[in-house]
Every structure is written in C-alpha cells, then in structure tokens.
C-alpha cells in the first residue's frame, strides 16, 4: 500500500467533544461518526444506517441535534462543541440529565442500542418546542425519526413528556 497516498490526504483536525479539546489526524472526508467511534473511542453514538435515516448516532453540535454519520470531519470547525450521550449530563452539571432520569423512571430501554440517539433527539426536541413557548404534543413526538426496532415507542413518548417537565 502506498503510504505516500495517505499522507497526501491526512490532516490534523481539532474541535471540542464533551468539553474536552481533541486533535485527530485523519483524512478530511472521513465522517465524524467514525472519527468519534473508531479513532477517539467514543462509542455512545451508534451506527444504524450511515445515511442519516435511523438517527442512532444523534448527538449535539453547538447544542443542536445532528447526525455525525453525515458530516465529514473537515466541516467541523475548531470552535465547534460536540456533545455525545457521554457528555450530556455535564451540560446540566449533574450526574444524569433530567431526560436520562425520565428514561430510568419509565424503564424505556429494551436492547438499548438506539437509546443514546433517542435521548439526544428528545432533549433537542424539547429545546426546540420550548423556544416556541409551548408544551410537547403528539404531533411533535411524531416528528422524531429515530428508530427503535424493539418497539418501545409508547414508553419513549411518555419519558419525553416526563423529561420535558424536569428540564
């Protein structure tokens, strides 16, 4: 294999993940999900499709939900702050975020694979709805695209309503 070809593309990228500045040397077209999982060892965000459909990798970029499977690392700026499920509690300065507490209260998880993405999406939904100055409705919950193949949706919906009250 040609090491030369690789050198040509690999470059240093720096940004903040869960409050910690990181620096990685990798080709700019590698998507952020793989930089997080395969290089930085941050495995909370899960792979479920790689094409921005299943939402299992949902994390926050500067406080807003996004899917790192669909963002090349070159598009991440040095001042960007990425929060994965691992860093969510710190955003409220607690051991667990209120949404995570609501998740426990409702025993939402089954296999657990989609849960980090579900929680990150739920927190974002509550923020967005709150900005509009209203409470979560069924119609809001219907907009969530995160898949739970175990089908724990009714508990998800209950937990999001509960978590919103505590946020």
């Amino acid at each position: 294999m040609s090491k030369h070809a690789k050198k040509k593309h690999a470059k240093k990228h720096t940004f903040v993940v869960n409050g910690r500045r990181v620096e990685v040397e990798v080709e700019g077209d590698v998507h952020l999900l793989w930089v997080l999982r395969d290089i930085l060892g941050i495995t909370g965000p899960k792979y479920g499709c790689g094409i921005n459909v299943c939402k299992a990798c949902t994390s926050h970029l500067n406080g807003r939900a996004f899917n790192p499977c669909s963002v090349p690392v070159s598009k991440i700026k040095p001042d960007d702050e990425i929060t994965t499920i691992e860093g969510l509690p710190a955003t409220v300065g607690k051991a667990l975020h209120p949404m995570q507490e609501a998740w426990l209260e409702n025993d939402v998880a089954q296999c657990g694979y989609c849960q980090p993405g579900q929680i990150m999406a739920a927190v974002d939904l509550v923020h967005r709805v709150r900005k509009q100055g209203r409470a979560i409705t069924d119609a809001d919950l219907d907009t969530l695209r995160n898949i739970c193949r175990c089908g724990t949706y009714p508990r998800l919906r209950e937990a999001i309503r509960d978590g919103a009250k505590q946020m």
Partner: protein
Amino acid sequence: MADLGTTPPLPAAPGVGRRTLLGYVLAAPILAVAVDWGLETAAPASAAAAIPTLPGVADLFDLSDAQTAAAMPTSHLISMELRTDGTVHFALPRMEVGQGITTSTAMIIADEMDIPVEKVVITLADARPELVMNQLTGGSNTTMSTYYPIRTAAAIARGRLLKAASLMLGGLPVSGLVTLGGEVIAPDGTRLSYGSLSKPAAATSTTAVKATLKPDTDLKVVGRPHNRIDAHAAITGEKTFTMDLHVPGALPTMVCRPPTINGKVKRVKNAKAVLRMPGVTHVATIPTGVAVRARTFGQCIDAVRALRVDWTPGLAGSKSDADITAELKAAEIPLVVPDVPLVAKSIDSEFWFAFAGNSALETNCAIADVRKGRAEIWGGFKAPIVAQSEIAAAIGLPASAVTVHCVNGGGSFGRKLFHDAATEAAQASKRMGVPVKLMWHRADDARQGRVHPMSIARTRATVLLGEVLTYEQRHTSVRTEFSHGFGDVITAAAGHLPVGDFSLAQFIYLTSQSTHYDFGVTTQMLDEVETRAFNTGAMRNIYSPNTAVARELTVDKIAKAVGKDPYDFRMATIKDPRSKAALQKVATVGKWGRTMPAGHAQGLGIHNEYHGFSACLVEIDTTPATVNRRVRDAVTGPRVTKVVFAVDVGLVVNPRGLEAQMMGGIMDGIALALTSSLHLSDGHFQEASWDNYAYTREWNVPFDVEIVIMPSTGSDPGGAGELGVAAAFAATAAAYARAVGKMPTRFPINHDQPLFFTPKPTVPPVPASPTNGLHRY
C-alpha cells in the same frame, strides 16, 4: 475454610407445596454452587377438551416443552459464585438481546437468596459445547427452562450461608437465623454479611446437596415490577455492544456484496487500487464477497464502493414476488373437508404474506482474531455452540480451538440465531492474518440478511345451523431455515413425543399452533417450498403471526356468516378459559362495541402459545385526513390509535419486562399489518434502508397503549418474548377490515401500492455517506 459437609434441606414452611431439588456445592475458595442445567421441565399443558375438537399437538405438548425436554439428557452444570464483596456472579448460558432475561435472572436469584437485585451480576456465558443444545435462546423458552435450575442454585447458596453463619455464631441453630438483604441475622441482632460468609461457606470437595425452594408465597421480588439492570448503562452510552469493544488490532472491516442474493465473486478487478485508498489495510475475497479492512468504517464504506467486482448470478435469478407466489401456489396442500352434510356452508379464505425483514438496529457484526491454531470470536449469539462449531469448520480449526464470547445484542428478532457475520469475520481474519471488527452496512442487512419467508395461508370452515363443523388451515411457505440448531433441539425431542413422524418444520408448526376454538374437526398443516435462493430465518414468533391473522380474520368471517358479533362469537367458541378471560379483559378495558366515527373501527385477535395466552383490541383510523397525512420518506396510511392487550403467561417474573415485550410485539404486529415488507424484484430485495423497510415509526405509533397483565396463574412461568406479535397483527388486520368494510387478503396492506421510495442502486452495493448532515436533520 471450614468444610461444612452436606447442607441439610432448609426447614419446610408449613402448608405450601415446596420443591426439593438437587444441586451441588463446588470445591472452590469461595462459595460456589451449581445445578444441572435443565433439571426441571415445565409440565405439558393438559388440554381439557370436553368438546368435539380434539386437542392439537400444541395443546398436548407445545414447542417450549419440546425445547425444555430436549435439554434434559444433555444438560450439564451451571454455576454461581458469591464473592467476598457480597456480590453474586452468574454467567447465564443464554443471550440477552433486549428481552430482559439478565434482569429477570437477577431477580430470581435475588429472591431465592435474599440479596438485593443490585448485588447480582449477570454476564453472558461463552459458548459451552458441553451444554450441547442447552445454550440456545429462542422459542421464548429462557425463563421456562431456567427458572427452577437458577432458583435451586440460589437456594443451595443460601443454605450454605446459613450453615456457615450458624458455625460462626457458635452453633446457633439454622432455624433461628434469618436471611435478609444480603445478610444473615441472628436472634440477638448480630448481622453477618454474605460477603464475609463467602469463604467460610466454601467447600473443599464437590458435593451433591438437596435444596428446598422457598414457597411461592414467600417470593418478594419475583412478580413485582423491576427496572432493567442494564438501564443505567443503556442511557449513558456505557452499555457495550460488539462494535463498541476494543480488541487490540481489530480494525473496521466491511464486505462488498453482490447485486443479487447470494451471488459469488468471479473476479476482483481493482484490488490493488483499492488497497491504496486512504486508511485501507487489507482487501481479501471471502466466500460471500470481498472484505476490506481499514482504519475507520467510513473508509471501509468508501473502499466497498470503489471495488469493481464481477459476480456470478444470484440464486434467485431474476425472480420477483409474483414468481415466488406462483411457486407457493403450485405447492399448496389441498383442503379436504371431512364428511359434512352437503347443505353445510363452506367459508373459504386465502391470505398472502410478503417477505419480511427481521433486521435489528444493530446490523450483523462480529469481531474475530484468528491465529495459527486458535481463534477468538466476539458477537451476539443465540446459538453459540452451533456458531462455534460452524465457524471452526469454516476456518479449518477444531471447535475446541475456537473461543466464542457472547456480547449483549442490539436486538435480534430471530436474527442472532444465525452467525453469518461471525463466519465472515473469521474467514476475513484468517485470509488477512490480522484481527477484524466486521460490520454489515444497513443496506447489506436489508438486502442480504435473513428474511422471514413469504407465505400463503388458506382456511376453510364449514358451518351448519350456526355451528362450525370443521376448520382447516393450510400454511404454505418458502422454507424457513432452522439450521442454527433450534431444529436440532426439537428433532432431538421429537422421537420421544406422541406426535408421529413429522418433518422438522411441520413439527415446529404443529407444536406452536394450538387449536384456539371449538370448531369441530380441526386440521392444520404446513408445507414449505424448498429453495436455497433466499437467506431465510425465523422472525419473532415464527409462523404464528401469519397463521393467527388467517385464523382470526376467518373467525370474523364466520361470525358474520352466522350473524354474531366478533366478540360474542369468540367467547362462545374459545376453548381455553384463560384465553377467554384475556379476551374478556380487553373487551371490557377497551370498551368493545363503543360507537366509533366513520372510518374508525375496533378489531379483536387472540393468540395462545408458549404456555401463554393473549388477546388484543385495536382501534384504527382510516379516514382520508389520517391516511393521506404526509411525512417525508415514510409510510403513513391508516393509523392504529389505541391498543389494549391482555396477557397471561402463568407466573410472571417481571411484570415491567413482560409489558415491554408485549409493547414490542404490538409494534411488530402493527408493522406487519400496515407498513413493513420486503419487495423481491429481479432477484433482489428493493429495500436498503430504514426509510425503505417501513418498520413502525413514531408517526405510526398508537396514542394509547394499555397492557393488562392477567393475575399470575400457577407457579410455572410461560414464554413472553414473542407472544405479543400474533394477536396484535390479527387485531390490527381485523380493525382495518371493519373500518374499510372489506377484508384485506394481502399483507402488509400497502405492499401492492407503488413503492414509496426510489430503490438504491445495487452496484456499488452500499450507498455513499451523505455530507449534508449540518443542514439536514
């Protein structure tokens, strides 16, 4: 350490029947106990058939009995140990895929030992070939087959702790000691923690001992709702799945797959160029495609897309749904009505069910480290012993040289009975000479993964003067592959059972389909079309969902023909009182028969299996405003607005977990009825994404789901992992039929509509990773 000899049985509590079972205290530095795995078998349900319909095979001896019985002659010891920190450790020889068996197992141990659930640590055992077929997770059999062995081990441990405490307290009689919260408490209030008793309670030689279990009335944890023991890990991202493991040197690996099902590599045209791509370390042809290994999965995806490969045609040729349907029609077993009066009315129905996907959210994946003379494998395995022997054969090693570690699975639904990715990982690791972390792309999982076979169900009932004289059901299906060992479990038992000489599939069909109604002479048969073209497998609840839909819709049809309400007719003809009670419950809670607006309707369905009984009431909205609502890249259509589900599985270990399993089954049933299927076209399935295979999504979820757990009956647990699907599917179909005034005969109901998505290209086999993630969420 003191040698305490044989522990006498605990004093029996008065009155209640208590089970005394045999187990072992093992020679070990700390307290370790063991039991024969599978020493108990659930008693076959006796069918009280006071009426003309003779009990079917499943009434006498259902699938779960066959499995439990199969475990008997081959069972071996499983052990549990108490550490000096007061924690109990047990490596469960079953697979956790979300169904909650680690939690229920911890509850069972905690209850029998009088220790907090939090002090019980459940891990998943590696493949243990000496357990032979008793390490298979399937058929909703885990709790049924493990409940008594696990309690026995825990009871022995508790007995040893009491005896050790007695000695430490100067010979105080055991009868005066109490165990509570992980401590032994003496009459004077002295407390000895279990941890401090672990070494004194240890044995220097392995001894067989008798244990008497607590009477059911003393159980305090079993039967009460308990949250999952892995919930905290799941919500913090700490729960570790196979692809989250760090195995030194195991770099991401993916496989470039053929454009048709099971095509083979003829020639790789640009391996050298692909090897030069950024991050790529290896390119190797394996039997199922071309494996590429790279620093990141993203670079694997790019490499898979860059590969230029010539393929042999797939085994499905250029076939489509219609071709396979024709093959099934040609193979159908005739319906043969027994002697009935000529004036009897015959009610015939036929229902068609599309191929369906059992793909979990975690795609097929495994880690393999194959070295000279040995191999180590990590993955989610419901049949780890079969996986071990087949992986060993695939890489030319004896099974004893292959270690198979079971890792928590991100869903299964039948998929993890197979080990397709682990075999590939082992082959790739061997060819490349390095460890690999192999994962399927979602598109691979949808197109090349296991599918639930297409099938046709036909029913014929003859009716005279309002009475059903005969009921026949014929199920014709593309062959379901049971080669993962589930079949071995059953056939091993089949020779000893009073059910005649059936084929394996027939046997599984008959043992899983009990006769639900008193419909006179009842026959049910299965015929499978042998084809190796597809990668099939049992999906959650195997044949039952489709069978139940055909049965329940037929029941609605008969009710109409005899002028009765679907509920009244069922209540008059259901055989089992527990089934009747479940139906009555959903009708009451769900207000059966309440006035609904136009386009809305209720539907009912029942299903009995795994020694469990279930009934479901569904309300559906088929009004144009709902059906035509728009969600991007999605199936909307009719919406189930409310579900009431009643379940009776005998003794319930964890009501909260049982409710979760029913909830999942309901979501599956709704998907199978209304939205989700695979379309076979030109030799391959069209679906390659979760926005193609329309499993239930938030916009399809009922607003109101109520699950009623019927009071525990008896002291034996039934199966729960799959029970929810069939009745929910049937009730959804029935509600839809009543809402639109026309009974659907093809499922899911949207299958024949124009595709709601544009199929992704098959070359390259996986889609490009989008780059618009900052703008599109």
